[in-house]
């Protein structure tokens, strides 16, 4: 269906013949893709076309009905720890605990993925949350929850970023800042795979690769 152009470098993530079925509906079949260092990949498609499913499958959270996913040409089920050390996944749910403060949330999130937590205050400031460090997350808004989770991006040095709707409930300025971060990340050899409903503004269209999923009524393979 869709094959992204190939460069000479080893692809960070590649997928072969992915087939995904949800609620007895075929979301995509035989989808192969290859994501190289420096790619910014935008997954497009109407609601229910399987964008989230694709990202979850690429991150190893869900299993596809059929097909394989490779990290640097190794099956991800064979190198789970190594793959997870190089992966940052940001889903619909922010993973923020209402009972903990903003800072505690970020600290835990960072420590869980093996980062040191020294710069967490500075990172909270980068997502416009300075002053809220000590307030319990349950007192904060949904957008602020998402920003707590996104703060991890500013410290992340892992190459693969998989971001599901990172701009939801984020203000314009935050979006611009994130877009800048994505460009930077691609420049230093990482890759970003994201879904979003709005167009990316500050990233040049030629920099973005698109995977378009179509809403299909089909549930049959050819």
């Amino acid at each position, binding site marked *: 269906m869709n094959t992204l152009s190939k460069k000479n470098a080893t692809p960070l993530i590649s997928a072969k013949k992915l087939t995904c079925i949800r609620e*007895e509906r075929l979301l995509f079949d035989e989808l192969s893709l290859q994501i190289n260092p420096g790619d910014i990949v935008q997954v497009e498609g109407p609601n229910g076309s399987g964008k989230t499913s694709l990202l979850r499958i690429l991150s190893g959270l869900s299993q596809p009905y059929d097909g394989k996913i490779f990290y640097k040409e190794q099956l991800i089920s064979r190198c789970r720890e190594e793959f997870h050390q190089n992966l940052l996944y940001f889903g619909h749910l922010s993973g923020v605990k209402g009972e903990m403060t903003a800072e505690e949330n970020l600290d835990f999130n960072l420590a869980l993925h093996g980062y040191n937590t020294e710069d967490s205050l500075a990172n909270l400031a980068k997502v416009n949350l300075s002053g809220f460090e000590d307030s319990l997350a349950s007192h904060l808004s949904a957008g602020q929850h998402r920003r707590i989770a996104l703060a991890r991006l500013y410290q992340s040095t892992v190459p693969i970023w998989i971001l599901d709707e990172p701009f939801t409930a984020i203000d314009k300025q935050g979006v611009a800042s994130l877009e800048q971060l994505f460009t930077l990340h691609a420049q230093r050899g990482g890759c970003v795979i994201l879904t979003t409903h709005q167009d990316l503004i500050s990233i040049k269209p030629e920099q973005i690769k698109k995977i378009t999923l179509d809403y299909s*009524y*089909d*549930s*049959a393979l050819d």
Partner: protein
Amino acid sequence: MQFNSFSEFINMGGYGFYVWLSFGAAALILACLLISSKAGHQKIITQIAKRKQREDKLRQAKALRKQQNKALNEVTE
């Protein structure tokens, strides 16, 4: 043959109720299981056929809409 008459057979030496209860219950459960398993086959086939019909309809509707849109666009142009 252990029994001389049919009524003796039914009576089972006084244990008739318990023996026939066991055999009856077992037969009933197994028959239900067998029938439901057998019927399941046709049920699944009709289910898949129905789904296929629905998909065909949806696809037709989509194609129709596309055509209409096209026509509409041509008119506005």
